[in-house]
């Protein structure tokens, strides 16, 4: 014996809704059934809850399972056709342009969240840019590559007086200022349209569709790299700013798919390595995750002085100036100064 309906009442009462919904574990069924037989309160409540479920069920309907199965293939085809119409895609971009195509898709989708709420374009994002200003900055940032590849400008912002002799950072910052100022004189949707036009234009070029035409090195933003790498840089920056806008709007922007992230990591590692300069002691950098890998930074001939472990996304955010060396999750071993030097150099790029 020792079985007391009153004692288990609270526990069973808590299960009645699940029971009425046929959502209990198989082990619960016997206990509930036995308790309800002896407990008038529970029996009454169960009756009420079952009635609610019954009302949701409605009158019995003829099962339409076969029809659904037949409709399935048709429905899938129809959906995929609608999908193609709803978002601009690019047929098989080359591997170097795929991360940019994906980043563009993700920002386009994010900006669609602003449809119907024009005021949100004024949400502060980063630096002194609002959402419109951030998109305008991307118009300016994509422009050098677009121009180099022979595209026409998408913004009427007039080029100011920095002159070609000025260092690229100065020209780059000045161009952003001009474009942001100009774009603020027109509706945000037009700024978004200009960005879209330029971005999709870049993705429609032969340089985005095949490896060969993208293999030529060209100097942009102070870096002489193959055009293919400049596409990866565009992906990097587009993702970082999409993430900025998402944070400002309270929407989580997932990090890029790992195949794409891997390309961003390789690029980040290369840029950090180039920036380390002479007199650096070699550091083994382990990047974790599906997009990771191991690299020795600094002179390869010397023995490794320290090991540093970073998460792939954190490394990108560090190089992108969105995390500080203190914030990146890491394991570290060996010469602390050497490891610190790598982190400080990565952060100093404060790229973007």
């Amino acid at each position, binding site marked *: 014996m020792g079985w007391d309906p009153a004692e288990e009442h609270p526990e069973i009462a*808590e*299960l*009645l*809704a*699940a029971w*009425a*919904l*046929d*959502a*209990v*574990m198989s082990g619960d069924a016997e206990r509930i059934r036995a308790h309800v037989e002896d407990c008038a309160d529970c029996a*009454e409540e169960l009756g*009420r*809850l079952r*009635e*609610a*479920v019954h*009302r*949701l*069920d*409605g*009158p019995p*309907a003829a099962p*339409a399972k076969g*029809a*659904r199965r037949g*409709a*399935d293939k048709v*429905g*899938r085809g*129809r*959906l*995929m056709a*609608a*999908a*193609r119409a*709803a*978002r601009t*895609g690019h047929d098989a971009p080359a591997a170097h342009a795929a991360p940019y*195509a*994906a*980043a563009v*898709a*993700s920002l386009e*989708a*994010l900006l*669609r*969240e602003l449809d119907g709420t024009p005021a949100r374009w004024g949400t502060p994002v980063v630096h002194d840019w609002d959402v419109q200003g951030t998109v305008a900055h991307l118009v300016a940032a994509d422009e050098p590559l677009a121009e180099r590849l022979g595209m026409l400008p998408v913004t009427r912002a007039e080029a100011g007086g920095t002159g070609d002799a000025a260092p690229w950072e100065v020209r780059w910052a000045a161009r952003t200022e001009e474009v942001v100022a100009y774009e603020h004189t027109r509706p945000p949707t037009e700024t978004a349209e200009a960005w879209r036009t330029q971005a999709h234009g870049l993705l429609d070029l032969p340089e985005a569709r095949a490896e060969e035409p993208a293999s030529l090195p060209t100097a942009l933003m102070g870096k002489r790299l193959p055009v293919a790498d400049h596409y990866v840089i565009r992906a990097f920056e587009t993702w970082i700013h999409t993430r900025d806008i*998402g944070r400002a709007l309270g*929407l*989580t*922007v*997932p*990090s*890029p*798919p790992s195949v*794409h992230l891997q390309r961003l990591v390789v690029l980040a590692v290369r840029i950090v390595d180039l920036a380390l300069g002479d007199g650096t002691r070699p550091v083994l950098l382990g990047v974790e995750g599906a997009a990771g890998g191991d690299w020795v930074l600094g002179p390869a001939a010397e023995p490794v002085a320290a090991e540093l472990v970073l998460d792939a996304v954190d490394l990108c955010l560090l190089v992108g100036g969105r995390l500080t060396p203190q914030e990146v999750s890491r394991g570290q071993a060996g010469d602390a100064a050497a490891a610190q030097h790598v982190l400080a150099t990565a952060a100093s790029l404060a790229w973007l």
Partner: protein
Amino acid sequence: MDRRAASPSTPPRDEDLHRRLVYGDESALGEAYDAFGGLAHAVAHRVTRSTHTAEEVVQEVLTHLWARPYAFDPARGSLRAWLSMQAHRRAVDRMSEAAGCGTLPAGTALLPHAALAELPPAQRQVLHLAYFAGRTYRQAAVELGIPEGTAKTRLRVALRSLADRLADPPDPAVEKGM
């Protein structure tokens, strides 16, 4: 709370699907359709009683997921529950419109479903998983990353308030059941 740490059986798929949807990978939409199109159809059919209308709702809901992937946040619930709720909401809206024009098909139980659609989202999520998706309270808890007790309580509160709304105007003497 890390949902994946809660149980290895929780699909990490939602985050993966969401990422691919956001980054414009069409194959993710096909996978979402294969995985949840049947559920969305069943939900819409339960409300509308029409295979044709249910199919329209499925198309609408999945096209919306594709066009507006940020509307779904995997940190706030499962894709299964989200799509089920979207399908339900849209089916109820269609039926309310039909009722407004006096063209509500016979046999539709709009009232209880309109009441369900008004429950707070946290309760609705669990109820959708239990009622439409056939999940046990434990499976629902794991899927949503909430404690089992919370899932049970939410089901109870949800079903009770549905029962309250659907009950005939209460007669206090009978209600307090001496």
